[in-house]
């Protein structure tokens, strides 16, 4: 099927085994990602929002080929990434990068900043000689705000603060001019006063290089800030619950889980906060991800639960309104 999408994830399922293997016990299988489909266009920003354990990180890493899906396909420019070979594979690899969450474990502890940044450039032979590589490294350090670049070039990670390390991580992803970047909770472990700075930096770099982003976060406020003109997808226990334009989705959530999530988000306005009531769920605590309820995974907590419908099958992601898809039996035929 012809597609104008840069990266197209179709019916992705990623299953893991949990539990111990015994004489009479085989490990349980659980689907971290369960039949999810999402496409990201050229230069587009898609936020992936969900709580911890919903599978968003697994989804992101599967999207760029770091995890092999149990079933389903990931297509880069129309071609299955797991079938690419040789130069085509190298092309894809160079163009699909990741920025990790934890600045304290995303950089090699025994490597200097220069080595960290030049490795990819050298591997893909993007720049012929060592002198020019050094120039490029200096350039990118300046672009991510680590000034003066000469000071940072020979530093080890332990000599840098969390915010500085995160900028190095960003530089590492960006130096290859990739067309697609997965940003996995990149400001979650950053001080409040610095979050917007890092997000603005990313927005600027995105403007310069034109990369697409899959921006993973549990914080709706951050998702909204980064994916302002783009789309947002909401995940729950391995399924995509809803996808749509960011502003519209926040103003008018369709899926009960999205509604509940938005009603629980803290409001920095004490008067408003007192008026807002969280949507009452049938059960407070989420189920064990290894043993979700039958049918729709949200069914045991959903205030709109319909017996005989919601506990039968998992709802499919269908287009409910223009540009909005929901996986809920309340919508559609």
């Amino acid at each position: 099927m012809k597609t104008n999408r840069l990266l197209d994830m179709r019916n992705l399922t990623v299953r893991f085994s949990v539990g111990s293997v015994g004489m009479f016990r085989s490990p349980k299988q659980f689907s971290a990602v369960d039949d999810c489909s999402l496409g990201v266009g050229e230069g587009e920003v898609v936020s992936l929002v969900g709580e911890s354990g919903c599978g968003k990180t697994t989804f992101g890493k599967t999207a760029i080929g770091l995890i092999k899906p149990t079933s389903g396909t990931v297509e880069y420019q129309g071609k299955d990434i797991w079938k690419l070979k040789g130069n085509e594979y190298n092309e894809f690899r160079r163009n699909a990068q990741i920025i990790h969450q934890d600045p304290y474990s995303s950089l090699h502890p025994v490597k200097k900043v220069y080595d960290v940044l030049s490795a990819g450039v050298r591997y893909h032979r993007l720049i012929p000689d060592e002198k020019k590589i050094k120039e490029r490294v200096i350039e990118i350090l300046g672009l991510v705000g680590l000034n003066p670049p000469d000071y940072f070039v020979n530093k080890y990670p332990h000599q840098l603060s969390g915010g500085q390390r995160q900028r190095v991580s960003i530089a590492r992803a960006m130096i290859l001019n990739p067309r697609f970047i997965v940003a996995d909770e990149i400001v979650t472990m950053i001080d409040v006063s610095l979050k917007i700075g890092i997000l603005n930096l990313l927005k600027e770099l995105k403007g310069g290089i034109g990369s697409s982003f899959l921006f993973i976060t549990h914080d709706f406020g951050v998702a909204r800030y980064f994916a302002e003109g783009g789309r947002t997808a909401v995940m729950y226990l391995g399924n995509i619950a809803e996808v749509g334009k960011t502003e519209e989705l926040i103003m008018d959530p369709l899926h009960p889980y999205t509604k509940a999530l938005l009603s629980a988000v803290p409001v920095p306005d004490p008067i408003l906060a007192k008026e807002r009531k969280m949507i009452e769920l049938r059960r407070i605590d989420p189920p064990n991800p290894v043993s979700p309820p039958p049918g729709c995974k949200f069914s045991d907590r959903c205030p709109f639960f319909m017996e005989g419908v919601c506990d039968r099958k998992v709802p499919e992601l269908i287009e409910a309104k223009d540009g909005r898809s929901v996986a809920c039996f309340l919508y559609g035929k």
Partner: protein
Amino acid sequence: MELDDITSSLRVLVENKRALVGSLILLGFILMALFGPMIFPLDMDPNFSLVYAPPSFEHPLGCDYIGVDILTEIIWGAKDVLTIVAIAGIITVVLGCIVGLVAGYFGGIVDLLLNTLVDIVLTIPGLPLVIVLAGLIQTRDPVSIGFILSAGAWAGLARSMRSQVLSIKERDFIEASRAIGIGRLSIVFYDVLPILMPFVGINFLFAVVQSLYASVALFFIGVLPFSTVHWGTMLNIAIQVSGAIFVPYARHYVIAPVIFIILLQVGLILFSYGVEDIFNPRLRT
């Protein structure tokens, strides 16, 4: 490796008092092995007037069962001893690392095959294996002896390297290297191995210490061909031929090699305290 890596490593070593003492001891042994023979000529002609001569000014460690100066024998033996244990240590570590790293990182069928190999080698008892090999491959060459000594030792290291790799390969910075596209072998040797250098260094030193004892034992038992100046052989002659532990006036003949063996071991162990420091980037900056 750049110049300031070397200078900072030396600085770290000097700052750790135990490692400093250890390195000085080791340096002493190396100098003894390299230059000693030039300075102290070995005269193997029997001199019956000096049989079991006690320590004196001309013969600081006394003389052996045929009147040859013990100190000179020790000095000449040092070269063989150090060569054997160094080779054994290096081969153990190189083999153990390669097998452990590759098995741990590549996983799958490679891991299965290598693991089976390691399991087989581990079931063979160490010392008997070495004794059998030494008996079969009768050789005087210290390098070959070093190889023989590492025959079983590498497997244990391979096993523990593999489990270290299993936990490291899940770390974020390794995943970032994969995302960049860096090949598996490059990741294993340029990303994973540097993290494990302290572990490798310590294991190297322990392998050296083990092979020191193993080689002394082999010479002592007499399995390895006779080489008069190896400390193990000296012990052999001292105890079995001369009955030196029972004969009070010949005791120095036993004690001398024992002291040097212990001293070498102490040097190695003290030096190992510095190994972790050398590879710690926090201390080098």
